[in-house]
């Protein structure tokens, strides 16, 4: 959380994380080059670069896609989610090197504009074995470029969280384009069951985690609560840990009920920054802290402490015989609600 926009708000965790990313990428490229030179020593440098960075980008994309559901299933993965954008930009750089070298090698040495050449050098759209797969890769690269260049919080704040999220969900279109690019491109020249197997296994793992998480979340969303005079029964007070929250669903939307300093407060569960689950965070320095990127809110009014301006909806609570009840009607975002004392 920062007031002014800096290129990167560095901290020691981010620096460590980025070093791991850079070293792993470098290690992969070296390993790929060594294996290629051992088993296929006639490969040219350009081809080696294209293949090494292309395969690296695909592996990184699969890792990026699996981080979200992994963090939902196990909070131990949250630190990776916290820095996912750095991984995304690194993946774009790998994809850009792959695309750049491909365009240079296959399209830049003629008398036609290289970009025009990508779209016109092969127009055999009806053939599966000779499909113009480079067009698919180029379109995917364009989407990845848009995502990487708007990944900064400056764009998140100025485009609005809703628009930004929609823009970044284009990663799924890029994913389909990349799968088609690989299967209609590289595999048409080198039909190896091994490489096809790796892509299929990658897709199965990513898709399985997403579907398992989706159904788990749907179950929580569809949970029905018992009502008493328009107040919904949440849980016994002992079920909520100190400085932590109980997440409760009201008409498909989630509310986080926090227990702290002998008080209870309820706010909407969705962080204004990137939609992080506030109820999975904890109270730090008297503020509810989002587990994804550390955005903070005051429990009693759902407002970010000054000078920040983010605010979320608040709810009224009451305690009867050590059982917590909630009024399902949300107050306006940032409305002060007296905490329920216990």
């Amino acid at each position, binding site marked *: 959380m920062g007031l002014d926009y800096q290129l990167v708000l560095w901290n020691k965790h981010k620096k460590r994380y980025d070093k791991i990313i850079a070293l792993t990428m470098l290690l992969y490229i070296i390993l790929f080059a060594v294996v290629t030179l051992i088993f296929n020593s006639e490969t040219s440098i350009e081809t080696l670069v294209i293949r090494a960075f292309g395969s690296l980008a695909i592996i990184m994309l699969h890792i990026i896609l699996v981080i979200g559901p992994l963090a939902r299933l196990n909070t131990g993965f949250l630190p990776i989610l916290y820095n996912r954008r750095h991984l995304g930009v690194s993946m774009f750089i790998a994809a850009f090197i792959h695309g750049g070298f491909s365009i240079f090698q296959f399209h830049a040495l003629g*008398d036609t504009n290289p970009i025009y050449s990508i779209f016109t050098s092969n127009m055999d759209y009806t053939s*599966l*074995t000779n499909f113009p797969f480079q067009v698919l890769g180029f379109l995917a690269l364009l989407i990845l470029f848009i995502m990487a260049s708007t990944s900064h919080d400056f764009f998140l704040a100025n485009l609005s969280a809703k628009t930004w*999220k929609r823009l970044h*969900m284009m990663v*799924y279109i890029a*994913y*389909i384009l990349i*799968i*088609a690019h690989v*299967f*209609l491109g590289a*595999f*048409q020249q080198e*039909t*190896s*069951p091994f490489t*096809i197997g790796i*892509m*299929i296994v990658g*897709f199965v793992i990513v*898709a399985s985690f*997403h*579907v398992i998480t*989706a*159904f788990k*979340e*749907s179950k929580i*969303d569809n949970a029905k609560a018992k009502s008493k005079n328009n107040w919904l029964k949440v849980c016994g007070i002992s079920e909520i840990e100190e400085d932590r929250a109980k997440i409760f669903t009201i008409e*498909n*939307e*989630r509310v986080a009920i926090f227990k702290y300093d002998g008080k209870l407060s309820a706010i909407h569960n*969705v962080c204004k920054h990137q*939609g*992080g*689950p506030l109820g999975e965070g904890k109270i730090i320095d008297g503020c509810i802290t989002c587990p994804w990127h550390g955005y903070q809110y005051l429990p009693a009014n759902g407002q970010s402490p000054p000078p920040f301006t983010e605010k979320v909806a608040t709810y009224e609570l009451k305690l009867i015989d050590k059982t917590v009840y909630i009024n399902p009607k949300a107050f306006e975002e940032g409305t002060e609600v007296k905490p329920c004392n216990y």
Partner: protein
Amino acid sequence: MTSGLRKAHKYIWLLLIIIVPVIIFLSIKDLNVFSSDNNTVSSIEPSKKNHLKTIENDILKIALYKNSIDAILKKTLKHPTSIVYELNNDGSKGNAIGQLTTAGIYKFNINNLPKGIILYDDLKHVEITKLQF
């Protein structure tokens, strides 16, 4: 994440589970992926059958096929234009086949088998080289 976004992610992945296997199936169905045959050799074989003759000199290497000519220009020429013409029976230049620019590999489709080719500079009206099959 709001419930709307959660639903959107769920339906996107259910859709991907259908779309991606279809793409994978369509892309590999025509490939002999699980055969032990060498796919590279089998794809080159038909070309070998159509190959008729290869000739070369200091400037050009020409491979004649049933329906095409592959030309390798060994070095970039000091001529403003270099047009490839069919060689007629009487040794004169016939129909134009194509144009060479810088050193590299060129492929031209042909309808009839020519007796040879003439590389001709149309601006200077100079015969650069002639090859007979």
